[in-house]
């Protein structure tokens, strides 16, 4: 097979008009015909719930699937900080163009310009829609919407609902979803896990799911499938993702021919609560707004084990302020994370494990008083204290970076359709809008933009253009039969291995390999090691994993084993992508490609493109296809935060 140059199908024209033009040129499905179309939506997070609700409102017949017991629990719920939009309510110079510009630049020029512009231009509508649904956004005393600045942005464009913005936006989308459920326009399938995608004549025509309660393998047919299944951060075992967050749906689609784009672009969030021990199951993020007032430091001397408050100022190294005098503690996420790692590698880590740095509020409390700090961060401080049993008003917080978000994902074109016709990918599961690094408060924006305002148009165009729905597909067809038998066989294999190591054991080891070699800082030899080690681990997994119980019942171990089997392949793909991308960009830092000041150095001549990986057999190297990126509206510049 040869490397393909792939096309993002971006319409020609002035970037400001192409979405409007494209919508006009898109074909429409006659209102009375919409009910004849079946659409499957997998996942009920911001992207999935908003897409399902909106498409149902238009009249399509929707089948909505989620892994949890209720669509309200998708992990979008855990987003704290806020959602961006260029309303310019504070009158501080924001505009759609500026939001677009910041997002492209923040993504280190590895996103698709036209997608980002569309995202910026529909962001305002999201705020309106959410407010109309009854999302209780923060208000000022006049009753108008409040904004805050977030993640180092120079304008205040972030809307928020206390520290629970993701929860509130998700519950808004969920309420719209349930509204359509009550009207019978959406059929809801909870506690179902997608385990394969079904193609008929090269087009997406259904999915295979496992009923988590009964273990039954179920088949569902449709005219199109929307994957809204989130990111793959749990490849690292420890991340801020939920326990059930997994990459299986996306990865099975990849194995059915969909391209996986830029898998090495992962975001590591700098302000998480450090790991406490071997039994830790997940990491907890604290809003990065903490860096507005907290000062990051480590002791000057290596291995200084004195309690933090006994270390005088002159023996502390406020390294972010020292290295980046103009941005200081507010440098972007990737820069803050990498610098923390550098300090720890230099032996200056703090705490019992030595894998943490201090985030100190002493000076902020001295300056503004405890009450002001409490009003701003009280809930975060409480959460920190609950988890660590230390009072951050008196002792500096200990923080460490953790995997948080994955910018890469299934490749989609401008219409959010993958290279497999009829397979659409929305939200974190796709790759298109954040490039190599996502800005704070932009994930919520993208998930909802895709679901509320993009997919209704592009899906309609696909369905109106594509007439395959006329060849009726039933779940009795051989394609479904085959997919089901493969899935059943795999489950039986897992149950029959009866080895000696638990699923978590394998997952933890994979996590260690990933964090060590495909983490904040990557180099050629490390990545090669990772690929070899993962291959070995995968072989061992299929020989020695122990999955107890049976299929015909709730079997959490079996669920995990199925997911870890996919992580064990995806991890290798991530390492491979990182190895091939011999430049540093955003969250992807290659030690071989850095400036003299140890900053990430892009290589626009050779890597200003999307790597879209094509599956070529489990133990055969995948093919690295390329979509060239062109930047005609935002000039390519090197980021600098000095």
């Amino acid at each position, binding site marked *: 097979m040869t490397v393909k140059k792939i096309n993002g199908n971006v319409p020609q024209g002035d970037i400001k008009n192409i979405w409007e033009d494209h919508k006009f040129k898109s074909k429409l499905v006659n209102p009375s015909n919409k009910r004849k179309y079946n659409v499957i939506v997998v996942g009920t997070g911001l992207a999935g719930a908003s897409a399902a*609700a*909106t498409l149902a*409102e238009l009249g399509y017949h929707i089948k909505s699937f989620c892994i*949890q*017991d*209720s669509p*309200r*629990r998708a*992990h979008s*719920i*855990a987003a704290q900080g806020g959602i961006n939009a260029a*309303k310019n*309510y504070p009158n501080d110079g924001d505009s759609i163009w500026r939001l677009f510009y910041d997002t492209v630049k923040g993504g280190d020029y590895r996103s698709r310009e036209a997608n980002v512009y569309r995202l910026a231009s529909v962001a305002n*509508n999201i*705020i*309106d*829609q959410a*407010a*109309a*649904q*009854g999302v*209780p*956004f*923060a*208000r000022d*005393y006049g*009753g*108008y*919407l409040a904004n805050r600045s977030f993640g180092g942005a120079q304008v205040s464009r972030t809307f928020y609902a206390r520290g*629970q913005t993701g*929860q*509130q936006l998700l*519950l808004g989308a*969920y*309420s*719209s979803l349930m*509204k359509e*459920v009550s009207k019978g326009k959406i059929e*809801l399938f*909870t506690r179902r896990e997608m385990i394969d995608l079904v193609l008929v004549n090269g087009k997406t025509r259904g999915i295979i799911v496992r009923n988590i*309660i009964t273990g039954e393998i179920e088949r569902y047919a449709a005219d199109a499938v929307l994957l809204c299944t989130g990111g793959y951060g749990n490849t690292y075992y420890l991340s801020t993702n*939920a326990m*059930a967050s997994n990459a299986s749906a996306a990865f099975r689609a990849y194995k059915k021919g969909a391209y996986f784009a830029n898998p090495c672009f992962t975001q590591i969030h700098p302000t998480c609560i450090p790991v*406490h*021990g071997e*039994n830790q*199951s*997940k990491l*907890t993020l604290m809003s990065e707004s903490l860096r507005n007032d907290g000062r990051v430091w480590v002791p000057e001397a290596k291995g200084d084990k004195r309690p933090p408050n006994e270390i005088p100022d002159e023996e502390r190294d406020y390294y972010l302020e020292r290295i980046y005098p103009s941005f200081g503690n507010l440098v972007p996420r990737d820069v803050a994370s990498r610098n923390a790692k550098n300090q720890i590698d230099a032996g200056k880590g703090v705490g019992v494990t030595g894998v943490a740095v201090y985030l100190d509020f002493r000076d902020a409390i001295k300056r503004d008083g405890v009450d002001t700090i409490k009003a701003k961060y009280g809930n975060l401080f409480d959460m920190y204290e*609950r*988890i660590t*049993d*230390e009072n951050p008003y008196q002792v500096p917080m200990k923080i460490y970076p953790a995997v948080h978000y994955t910018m890469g994902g299934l490749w989609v074109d401008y219409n959010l359709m993958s290279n497999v016709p009829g397979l659409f990918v929305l939200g974190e599961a796709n790759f298109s809008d954040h490039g190599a690094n996502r800005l704070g408060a932009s994930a919520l924006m993208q998930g909802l933009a895709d679901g509320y305002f993009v997919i209704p148009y592009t899906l309609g165009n696909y369905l109106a253009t594509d007439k395959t729905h006329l060849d009726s597909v039933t779940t009795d067809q051989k394609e479904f039969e085959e997919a089901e038998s493969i899935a059943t066989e795999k489950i039986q294999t897992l149950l029959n291995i009866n080895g000696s190591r*638990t699923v*978590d054991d394998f997952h933890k080891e994979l996590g260690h390999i990933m964090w060590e070699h495909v983490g904040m800082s990557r180099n050629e030899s490390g990545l090669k090691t990772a690929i070899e080690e993962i291959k070995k681990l995968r072989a061992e997994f299929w020989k020695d994993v*122990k999955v*107890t119980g049976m299929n015909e*019942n*709730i079997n*959490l171990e079996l669920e995990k084993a199925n997911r870890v089997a996919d992580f064990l392949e995806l991890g290798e793909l991530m390492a491979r992508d990182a190895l091939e991308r011999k430049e540093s960009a955003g969250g992807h830092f290659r030690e071989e490609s850095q400036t003299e000041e140890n900053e990430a150095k892009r290589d626009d001549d050779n890597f200003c493109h999307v790597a879209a990986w094509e599956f070529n057999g489990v133990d055969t190297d995948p093919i690295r296809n390329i979509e060239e990126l062109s930047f005609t509206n935002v000039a390519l510049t090197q980021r600098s935060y000095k």
Partner: protein
Amino acid sequence: MRNNTVSMNLNLKIWRQKDGKDKGFIEDYRLDGVSPDMSFLEMLDMLNETLIREGKDPVAFDHDCREGICGMCSLMINGQSHGPEAETTTCQLHMRKFKNGDTIVIEPFRAKAFPVLKDLIVDRSAFDEIIAAGGYVSVNTGNAQDANTLPISKINAELSMDAAACIGCGACVASCKNASAMLFVSAKVSQLSLLPQGQIEAEARVQSMVNKMDELGFGNCTNEAECEASCPKGIDISNIARMNREYLTASVKSQE
């Protein structure tokens, strides 16, 4: 500074039930070497790892985000929903709140409307049915006007947010001696009725949500406030009063 070196030995009494039809029983386990820094669920993970290695069926429990917001985790711990700590979900409860040698009883949330599916996992889809009965504003995508055309007083926005903080975990039902869902339902009713955009459907909403709640077999409220006390998000029973008042006036006034 706390002591990191101590580890605890615990006696666990855990409800085991094969599936929805099984009768179920309490089984005793001994777990040694538990670190006080572990979360309650990590302690159960540890138990499960041990059980799997012994070839036994691990204890099934619901969990997902493990940061106290998704509402997936449940558990009655020593007879209290989400355990003894105020405003804390099970996943945020840490073992340092227990003592070496403690016996801990772990049961599923119990209510007729929350049937047990396996071990500690219960079916809470009744909550979704209640939301589907009216817990929304009927606004289709694209209908909305500019968000600032509807100013909302800060106090109402705050009260609405207080109610909206509900994570739908069902601790209120589990801790209520009557298995009443009033706190859950009233939180949604309040969140929307405190906002102008929710006012349009307020009368129909409160009636259909309450009727659905009754139909699903939840108990009646006896104003004991155990729901409020066990709510991990501290949702106030003044929301229940608001719903009581709105239900009454809606029943009298509404023309539907």
